[in-house]
């Protein structure tokens, strides 16, 4: 037998329940919590619960930058690269600082799987720039000392 996928329910395009479908983003958030990213299994699960094709789920998820289709570290550090952070000596400067400190480049994950470093678009912290985010926590008015503080605390965590 070849490796063709069997066509399996559910199938999208037809009989989509709009109320169910509107739960897509919420469902993806929940699914992402399991592993920090949307594994194929997570996509399948969401598809099954919302009665649409896995492809439709994948397509939708891939549109939104907060959904990840690949594994990431336990802490995802997102440095704002917005214009105001840049004007306030942030953006690349912060990113470079964190990069040097963790020994990883942008887009990479530390070998212990603890940190992933990324840049992110404007975090609406322009009045308190520069800013970065670690998972759900927003940090503003960053300085090297503050960044040290944050990273050392997280590194110390088991």
């Amino acid at each position, binding site marked *: 037998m070849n490796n063709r*996928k069997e066509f*399996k329910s559910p199938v999208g395009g037809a009989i989509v329940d709009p109320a169910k479908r509107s739960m897509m983003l919420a469902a993806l958030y929940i699914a992402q919590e399991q592993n920090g990213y949307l594994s194929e299994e997570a996509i399948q699960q969401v598809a099954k619960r919302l009665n649409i094709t896995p492809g439709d789920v994948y397509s939708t998820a891939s*549109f939104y930058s907060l959904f990840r289709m690949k594994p990431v570290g336990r802490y995802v550090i997102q440095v704002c690269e917005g214009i105001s952070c840049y004007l306030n000596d942030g953006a690349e400067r912060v990113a470079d600082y964190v990069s040097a400190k963790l020994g990883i480049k942008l887009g990479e994950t530390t070998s212990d799987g603890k940190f992933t470093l990324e840049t992110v678009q404007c975090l609406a912290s322009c009045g308190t720039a520069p800013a970065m985010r670690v998972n759900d926590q927003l940090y503003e008015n960053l300085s090297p000392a503050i960044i040290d503080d944050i990273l050392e605390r997280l590194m110390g965590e088991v």
Partner: protein
Amino acid sequence: MKVTINGKRFEIPPGKTILQAAQANGIYIPTLCYHEKIGPLAKCRACAVEIKGNPNLVTACNTPVTDGMEIVTDSDRAVAAQRFVIDLALSSGNHDCIICEKSGACELQDAAYFLKFEDKDFKKGDYPPNIDDSSAFIRVDHNRCILCGRCVEACNHIVVNGVIQIIDRGFTSHIGFDNNIPMGESSCVQCGECTQVCPVGALTSKKSIGKGRAWEVEKVRTTCPYCGVGCQLELHVKNGMIVKVTGVEDGSPNKGRLCVKGRYGYDFIYSEDRLTVPLIKEKGTFREASWDEALDLVAKKFKDIIKKHGPDAIAGVSCARSTNEDSYQMQKLFRSVLKTNNIDHCART
């Protein structure tokens, strides 16, 4: 409704868009995403036209015609806007017409030609190869894809197979299959509707590659030889050989739609296995024979059997795959010559 297009007056039935009105009257407006059976997506923005009294250009594909409308499709402004989109589309992929299967039937090529593009007028894309060759019958060249969205609409809303999706967003978005796996591993049933609507060489029929250019083929309409739906096919014939099959877009019952068998299951007729000479069995093995010998033998045997055992000692099974005319002839042979009603076919399987 009375409208003028480029200074000429036309009578247009209500409910039409500017693009439909122009196309119906032989006026070409460049468009890459519009397809009659999908409807306006207003995605490519190539069909920019001017309407007198409207300060902005409008997209012809989704702007309804109104009575007395004065439309200009070839003003400097409209043409500049049309050229801009074609330039972008050309720069966004590797549009290598020389080796492209779609050359001659490509809507991007047509638009560039119509707008008199010269080498200096556009940026050529140069991207690393990105071909998905995993499917048995369909070749996907992502670098030729302009993301017009037709295949996505067709797969999801015409044949409702829900396989093709747009993955990611923005410039990095691309078409993908199921949850972004190669086409050949996906749940794609290879009906080829996507190849039928693709305006460029992104989705092409593998079987046809290198077999004939669009302008070399003659199109012959016929009926599919597979199931009882009776889809209307367009055979693309070069030197007496079928090189491609497409659905007849405005033909009943299928309106261009086909399945994997109808679209790709045509070349059995060229098989080496074909029977080409009458065969007569002698001592358990077949030998070649002339038509006269074989036909005479059959006629003689039938006559003998009828003579000895009566007409009903002969029976015939006709073919539910062959033409009406053939079945008619066979039952006529049985009834009028052999004088038996022992004629049937697999009406029940």
